[in-house]
């Protein structure tokens, strides 16, 4: 009974002759019958001979009797072999869970970080609204410049164009709107779009609830609104009964007629500024006040091309029918207001252009900045993936040396090299497949975290869920990683003869040079990342230390939107006066001031500044910015007066118009002439000349660290709809933020407060991108450093193990433990140097890319370029410490025992 458990060896060997598919059945039958024969008294040799005879007959029969109707799986087919290999790879990975987990984790981090950063870039720049047949939706714009956000045409031009194109193309217009909404959840400030009758039909959208009926049959606007799906979900809990209900927009009651489809946020920079509300043009004088005024806000034009029609043909048809968009009539209007003649080669030209909408969802200048920053950050995040890959390649290479025997046997047993390569590839693909799933999850977490910090350029929370672009990016990254990681071992297997793969004692050298090269590559990538992180960290520190030329540290403010609150000019002035009185009574308040923008606000208005008194009637003109401010604001901001006076109580509405300029403006317009007494016009403002009464010191304007020509005008003479009410105090301004907000609410509960913070916090937004970039890059750099240090340590520890015998011989011949330690440290230093030097060179070349967003330091900042190699040297020593100590502790008598 000794052979009951397992077929005897001779039978197993002989049975190999039988077709594999039937081998087990045949052996089982023969075993069973042989037992019966033995019990029946047959001798052992007889049964052996009997069984062998049957095996031979079975071998012939099983290989000759074909079963044509059953696909012969005698040898695993192409498909089956993949399955076998997959099973083998999985079992092998599961057999060493710790090592596999480390590999998966490394790659997960690499893919996750890279896909996460790409996800943000994708979310900001590439996501398109869910519009059917998006490639047929186009914008119509003046031919002399690219389609631009919401700035393509006058409203009246839209009406003319729409009529000219009637029958050929339905043209819709959309204008930007922002205001307060109450009646659907809490009162809030949100963005929306004013649209023409054909808007939703042109985009071919279907409502998620209700209808899109914003106009009646005769084309007159209804007092109606469409809500975004997101707003419907968040404020109304997706209640279908919202349709037909009344909401209040800027104090006007409107009926909700429908809900837009999920994911649709309008077509005016939808990834950055989501629209939550759609209303018809002209819906009410309070919501859309200037629609028929000469200064009506410009609109964007969209149309849907008929299937198969080319843009050129449609453009020619419309032009032939008299459709036109005159170029920049605004500039002509501005020129007329100052009596200037501005030569414009395009004036009056009857031309228009048609471009695809998807290409102009984001204004070109913003797209430019976004693409450069996005590609720089994506490239830097790819370095983390690169480091992770080369680390993993290193581990696998070491592993491949240990598998030499296995591969040699496989080759000897008839496996082809292609088969071995496939085996290695399947293993790495298993790892990268799992890492891809984990990486996408991690990418979502990273994107969510970054989106939660409210990216400074957006008014909308980014949608962090990965779309097909992010998944595709991750999948490609994972596939490339799998191939790259498999390349080392595969190369080793294919290059060498089977016998040379059999370990043959101490002469068999592991591929140390390749492994060192991989570590050096990691160090190089790490250097680039750390230099970038260092530059941004320095910029962040500099931006915090930098003085913008004014001091807002004692100011708290609340920003109100009077237009959105439904207050007209007079009611607005009245509210501001009462609010200022009430705010002055808050304990601790020394002074109350008003401004429509502070010098570092992005809300600062751009204008062309025109000066009088040039030679021979020439009027110098520069582009600059201006702010409407109240009396006392310049003093509160501690902006020193250089000449003339500041605004006083006499600079009221109706009094002679005045302005104060900064030194840059004075120098540019009047070239060292005394500026006070000259006259200034702001193009874009229709109010003509004003006298310069004072000159103030330059401050940063618009962008931290950069000054620019700027003018201040009295807010009483130039009313604004969005106004910041600031209070100056001796106490901590943070303590006054809440009381100020309460006070304004008490004065008028319906006024929309869009921001409420200290002025310093608001002005800090200008440098927020730098600080955010610094945080992200420092995190990336730390991660890269950790992975690279791990890789360095791994290689050093491995070589020390490999060289134990060599070290033993050295020590037996008289080497001191110190010199052995130096041996290891030297190896570490060589790998470091081999990586850091090229890394520094790459950084030197690459920093130009980052130059635009550095603050206060040059791209070749010596501090960053010196600190980083120092840091890496420290890490190199740390990583070498343990292997070096282990090398020093090698006992020659033990190391040499197995010789």
């Amino acid at each position: 009974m000794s052979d009951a458990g397992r077929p005897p060896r001779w039978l197993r060997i002989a049975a190999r002759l039988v077709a594999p598919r039937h081998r087990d059945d045949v052996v089982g039958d023969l075993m069973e019958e042989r037992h019966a024969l033995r019990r029946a008294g047959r001798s052992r040799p007889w049964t052996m001979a009997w069984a062998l005879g049957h095996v031979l007959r079975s071998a012939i029969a099983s290989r000759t009797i074909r079963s044509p109707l059953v696909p012969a799986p005698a040898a695993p087919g192409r498909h089956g072999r993949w399955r076998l290999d997959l099973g083998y790879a999985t079992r092998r990975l599961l057999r060493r869970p710790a090592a596999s987990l480390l590999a998966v984790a490394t790659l997960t981090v690499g893919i996750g970080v890279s896909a996460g950063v790409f996800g943000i870039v994708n979310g900001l720049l590439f996501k398109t609204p869910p519009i059917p047949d998006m490639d047929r939706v186009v914008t119509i714009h003046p031919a002399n410049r690219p389609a631009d956000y919401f700035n393509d045409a006058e409203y009246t031009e839209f009406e003319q164009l729409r009529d000219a194109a009637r029958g050929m193309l339905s043209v819709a217009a959309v204008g930007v709107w922002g205001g307060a909404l109450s009646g659907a959840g809490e009162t809030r400030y949100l963005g929306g779009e004013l649209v023409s009758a054909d808007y939703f039909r042109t985009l071919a959208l279907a409502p998620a609830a209700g209808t899109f009926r914003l106009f009646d049959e005769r084309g007159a606007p209804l007092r109606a609104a469409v809500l975004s799906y997101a707003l419907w979900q968040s404020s109304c809990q997706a209640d279908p009964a919202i349709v037909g209900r009344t909401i209040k927009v800027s104090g006007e009651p409107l009926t909700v007629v429908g809900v837009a489809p999920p994911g649709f946020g309008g077509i005016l920079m939808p990834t950055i500024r989501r629209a939550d509300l759609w209303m018809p043009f002209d819906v009410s004088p309070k919501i859309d006040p200037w629609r028929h005024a000469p200064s009506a806000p410009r609109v964007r034009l969209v149309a849907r091309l008929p299937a198969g029609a080319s843009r050129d043909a449609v453009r020619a048809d419309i032009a032939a029918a008299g459709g036109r968009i005159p170029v920049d009539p605004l500039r002509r209007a501005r020129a007329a207001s100052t009596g200037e003649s501005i030569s414009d080669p395009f004036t009056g030209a009857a031309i228009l252009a048609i471009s695809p909408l998807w290409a102009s969802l984001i204004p070109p200048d913003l797209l430019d900045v976004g693409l450069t920053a996005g590609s720089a950050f994506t490239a830097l995040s790819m370095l983390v993936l690169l480091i992770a890959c080369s680390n993993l390649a290193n581990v696998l290479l070491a592993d491949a040396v240990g598998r030499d025997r296995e591969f040699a046997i496989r080759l000897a047993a008839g496996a082809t090299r292609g088969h071995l390569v496939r085996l290695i590839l399947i293993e790495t693909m298993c790892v990268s497949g799992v890492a891809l799933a984990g990486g996408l999850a991690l990418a979502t977490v990273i994107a969510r975290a970054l989106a939660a910090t409210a990216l400074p350029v957006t008014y909308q929370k980014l949608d962090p869920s990965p779309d097909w672009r992010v998944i595709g990016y991750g999948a490609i990254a994972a596939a490339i990683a799998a191939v790259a990681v498999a390349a080392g071992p595969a190369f080793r297997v294919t290059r060498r003869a089977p016998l040379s793969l059999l370990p043959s004692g101490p002469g068999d050298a592991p591929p140390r040079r390749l492994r060192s090269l991989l570590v050096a590559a990691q160090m190089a990538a790490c250097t680039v990342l750390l230099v970038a992180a260092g530059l941004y960290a320095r910029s962040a520190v500099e931006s915090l230390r930098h003085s913008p030329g004014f001091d807002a540290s004692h100011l708290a403010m609340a920003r109100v939107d009077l237009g959105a609150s439904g207050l007209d000019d007079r009611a607005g002035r009245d509210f501001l006066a009462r609010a200022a009185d009430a705010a002055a009574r808050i304990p601790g308040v020394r002074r109350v001031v008003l401004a429509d923008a502070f010098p570092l606000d992005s809300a600062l208005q751009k204008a062309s500044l025109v000066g009088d008194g040039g030679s021979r009637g020439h009027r110098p003109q520069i582009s600059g910015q201006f702010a409407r401010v109240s009396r006392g604001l310049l003093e509160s901001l501690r902006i020193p007066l250089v000449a003339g006076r500041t605004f006083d109580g006499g600079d009221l509405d109706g009094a002679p118009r005045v302005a104060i300029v900064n030194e840059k403006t004075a120098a540019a317009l009047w070239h060292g002439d005394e500026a006070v007494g000259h006259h200034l016009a702001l193009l874009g403002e229709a109010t003509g000349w004003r006298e310069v009464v004072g000159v103030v010191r330059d401050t940063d304007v618009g962008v931290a660290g950069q000054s620019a020509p700027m003018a201040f005008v009295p807010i009483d003479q130039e009313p604004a709809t969005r106004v910041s009410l600031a209070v100056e105090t001796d106490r901590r301004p943070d303590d006054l933020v809440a009381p100020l907000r309460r006070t304004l609410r008490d004065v008028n509960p319906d006024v929309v407060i869009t921001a409420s913070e200290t002025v310093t916090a608001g002005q800090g937004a200008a440098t927020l991108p730098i600080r955010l970039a610094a945080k992200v890059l420092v995190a990336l750099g730390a991660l890269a450093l950790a992975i690279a240090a791990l890789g360095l340590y791994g290689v050093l520890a491995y070589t020390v193990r490999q060289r134990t015998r060599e070290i033993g011989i050295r020590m037996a011949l008289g080497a001191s433990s110190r010199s052995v330690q130096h041996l290891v440290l030297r190896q570490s230093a060589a790998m470091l140097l081999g990586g850091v030097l090229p890394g520094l060179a790459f950084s030197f070349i690459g920093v130009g890319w980052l130059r635009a967003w550095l603050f206060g330091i040059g791209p070749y900042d010596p501090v960053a370029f010196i600190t980083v190699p120092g840091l890496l040297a420290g890490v190199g020593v740390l990583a070498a410490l343990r292997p070096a100590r282990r090398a020093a502790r090698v006992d020659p008598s033990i190391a040499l025992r197995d010789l």
Partner: protein
Amino acid sequence: MPRYNLGELEQVVLLALLRLGGEAYGAAIRAEIKARTGRSVTPGAIYPTLDRLEGRGLLHSRMGEPTPERGGRARRHVKITAAGLREVREAWRRTSALAAGVLALGPERRDV
């Protein structure tokens, strides 16, 4: 009209299976053939035949538990299907129709 005629070995295997009550495993079929006809069919011939019959839907098979007696191999149990029964009847009808009056079945045995 069947498109495919049962082969001789197929017919033998199916008949042996029927003799065993329509349900049996490989070694038992061989033993039955041997006992009834004296013909020793090698296992290497039985199993491809079973495969082929199964592929045509004439029988089902399932694997049993591995037993130490069989050296840790499992028994393969097969069971004739209704189609199998129909097929073997038809084959027998044709064979007997041709043989009727031509041959007198004697007691002599014939080995393969």
